[in-house]
């Protein structure tokens, strides 16, 4: 690239331009966060801590909760439920989607249920889940599984249907049978759809875990946020919300890195 694209008269060397672009890239995000924190702080000066605790208060509370282990315990409980329910949902949703996409009979059979249940939010099943599965871990995991399985299945079906029919013809004329066609063409073609489904499902699992924990859990970030009510600790609520945000960011990052690393050639 040339360095002649600026306004006439001003000529900066290329390295300076590059440095400026880099500096902009790394500084704007953090500066924006800083500004947000400042705004929050100013707003908290004019309200009561019960209504809006200041960032500093929340920070101190977070440190306390880290020190006594309650924050990590909550994060671990929620993270474990999400990971388990989500993984089980992906493990069932992918093969289900492949079979439904590939065999119209199976699709016709399962379709009415999928179309019916996918509009019912998992939260609507919390009560039933507790009645049927009890108050234990399995209830929360089952609800997250339910959240995940639909999204992954529907995305995988879309992926299977989007397989280029010419590629299937090519595979057939190169000697593929029904099974090798599935393993060597359909599955690899569908990977990007599966990854997208899994990522969306991860986001929705966070919604579900909080509502499930609010209704029926002693541990977890949802339970922590709900318990704060009994002690009038708005700062706990803030710690819980921030922890959720960070946890979600970390999960999504890990998922993206893993899929880029392992599934790069299928994108």
């Amino acid at each position, binding site marked *: 690239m040339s360095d002649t694209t600026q306004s006439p008269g001003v000529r900066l060397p290329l390295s300076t331009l590059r440095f400026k672009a880099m500096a902009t890239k790394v500084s704007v995000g953090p500066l924006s966060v800083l500004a947000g924190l400042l705004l929050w702080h100013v707003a908290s000066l004019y309200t009561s801590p019960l209504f809006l605790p200041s960032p500093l208060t929340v920070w101190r509370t977070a440190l306390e909760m880290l020190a006594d282990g309650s924050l990590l315990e909550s994060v671990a409980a929620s993270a474990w439920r999400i990971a388990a329910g989500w993984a089980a949902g992906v493990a069932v949703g992918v093969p289900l989607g492949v079979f439904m996409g590939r065999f119209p009979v199976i699709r016709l059979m399962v379709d009415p249920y999928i179309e019916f249940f996918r509009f019912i939010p998992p939260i609507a099943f919390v009560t039933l889940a507790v009645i049927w599965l009890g108050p234990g871990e399995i209830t929360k995991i089952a609800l997250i599984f339910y959240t995940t399985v639909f999204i992954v299945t529907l995305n995988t079906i879309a992926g299977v249907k989007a397989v280029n029919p010419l590629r299937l013809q090519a595979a057939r004329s190169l000697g593929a049978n029904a099974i090798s066609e599935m393993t*060597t063409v359909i599955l690899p073609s569908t990977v990007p759809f599966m990854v997208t489904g899994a990522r969306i499902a991860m986001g929705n699992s966070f919604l579900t875990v909080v509502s499930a924990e609010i209704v029926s859990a002693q541990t977890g970030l949802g339970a922590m946020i709900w318990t704060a009510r009994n002690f009038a600790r708005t700062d706990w609520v803030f710690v819980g919300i921030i922890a959720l945000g960070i946890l979600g960011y970390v999960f999504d990052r890990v998922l993206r890195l893993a899929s880029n690393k392992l599934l790069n050639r299928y994108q």
Partner: protein
Amino acid sequence: MQGASISLDHVGISFGDAQIVSNVNLEIRPGEFICLLGPSGCGKSTLLNAIAGFLPVQGRIEVNESPVTGPGLDRGVVFQSAEVLFPWLTIRENVEYGLRLRGTPALARREKADHFLGLVGLTHAAEKFPAQLSGGMRQRAQIARVLINEPHVVLMDEPFGALDAQTREVLQVELDRIWRESGCTIVFVTHDIWEALLLADRVVVMTAGPRAGIKTIETIDLPHPRDQGSSECLALFRRLRDDIGAEVKQALRQQGLNREPV
């Protein structure tokens, strides 16, 4: 590699109620290079897909005297779109695909792939992915992927149609060489008269659809590699152009596009 004979006996193809191709009779000798030439939409690709075994037909299609009932390893297919290469496999893995399906050991696979990658001039690009190659290179990769199976018949559906003129010329000459080295039978669909003249032993001109059939068959009895500037070539070109011109005009008239001047 040995070419196979192909025999089309009263072949018709329909989609639902629409008869696309009707009553095609054609005998193709082993090792012959046949070009199917005709206006676009006339059903040449449909006929090719039928020989490939992708479509059910009325009548009979036989390859080496055994009836075609579906896709088979004896007939390789080169598609117009290089999209049929698997983007998640390297060029080498794409070329080795057929051998891998049949469980050929890795070493033998590698040796054979090297041979066919060399034949199409892609040795240097073996470890690249299709998206990293130009259109012409991708088509050559497709040809190598088909040839490695050593098919008796290679069916090509406008394989150079999407390429620029220069690349197309180079690949036409290469295909001519590969065909003579391999001895396989080739059925090649095109709407480019020059391309047909350069490559074919016989040019089969098809009528405009629907109910497309064979209009004329022109034998090109000229030595390879051919000189398109020779007087025989020019005379053949004129004849084919007039044959196809009439069909194109009819096709356009059917679509209501071309009114004869009053």
